[in-house]
């Protein structure tokens, strides 16, 4: 909630002029989404908190450049994604994972599933199990899965942000979903038993 029921657009304008209370109100409104994004992309609470802090500091420094061409939440979200990707690039994780996908002998590819005919998803997935499974994905898979399937970015946007090809983004996403299925599945017999 903005101060005294103030519209978000006014709070943004005031924050541009250095109004700390309005900036705090913007933080309060958007902190969950930014923190959740950071946590899902990194899988690490301490890193996610540092990156959330960095994203809002950058927001404060750059808010004067916000012209309202897109929704403020979209603009802030993109800023936060870039903060996380910059951090991960410094750690070297995405590059390694992207390179791995180019290797033909990768064991997480779709062909692995030909023989696993007795494995299916464990009925409905609860949120906690899905979050845990996402957290355990290799970083390259996790980032693209989070950006595409959770945050709703298109492959061309991800390719631009990640500095990879659209095909690579699609390939990573597919492998991420396959890996998640591996992590969440049980045998057909177990699922049948759980339905009885």
């Amino acid at each position: 909630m903005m101060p005294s029921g103030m519209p978000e657009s006014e709070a943004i304008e005031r924050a541009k002029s250095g109004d700390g209370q309005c900036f705090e109100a913007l933080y309060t409104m958007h902190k969950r989404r930014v923190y959740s994004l950071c946590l899902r992309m990194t899988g690490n609470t301490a890193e996610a908190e540092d990156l959330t802090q960095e994203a809002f500091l950058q927001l404060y420094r750059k808010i004067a450049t916000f012209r309202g061409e897109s929704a403020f939440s979209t603009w802030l979200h993109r800023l936060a994604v870039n903060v996380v990707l910059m951090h991960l690039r410094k750690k070297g994780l995405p590059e390694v994972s992207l390179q791995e996908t180019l290797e033909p002998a990768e064991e997480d590819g779709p062909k692995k599933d030909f023989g696993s005919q007795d494995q299916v998803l464990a009925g409905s997935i609860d949120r906690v199990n899905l979050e845990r499974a996402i957290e355990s994905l290799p970083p390259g898979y996790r980032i693209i899965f989070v950006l595409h399937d959770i945050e709703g970015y298109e492959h061309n946007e991800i390719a631009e942000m990640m500095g990879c090809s659209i095909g690579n983004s699609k390939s990573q996403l597919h492998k991420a979903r396959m890996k998640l299925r591996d992590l969440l599945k049980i045998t057909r017999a177990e699922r049948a038993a759980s339905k009885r």
Partner: protein
Amino acid sequence: MKTGHELIVENGQESIAAAAHNAGRHIQMNCAEFQRDLPLIIDTGGTEHQEAHLRTCAVCRDLVSDLRYIAEQAKLLIPMLEPSPKVWEGIEEKLKSEGLVKPVRARNT
């Protein structure tokens, strides 16, 4: 008169679907062929030929269903996670130290 298969070889085409069409009969796609196009099938739906494979193959049917379900469930993961109060405290401290903002009362605890 040339058969469908001969025409395909003559034209250098290797498509199984085209071969089936030209020969006037239906050749069942196998799992390897189906799963080769899986990412496209998941996101945009399959061709008639791929749909025919799905109707007869429980393994691929479960696979497609599971992968679509995972994608659907991911979209429902709303941002419920709350950062600790120290995140805002850190932001406020940094902004104050840089002289960028007047002190504000910490309400995000």
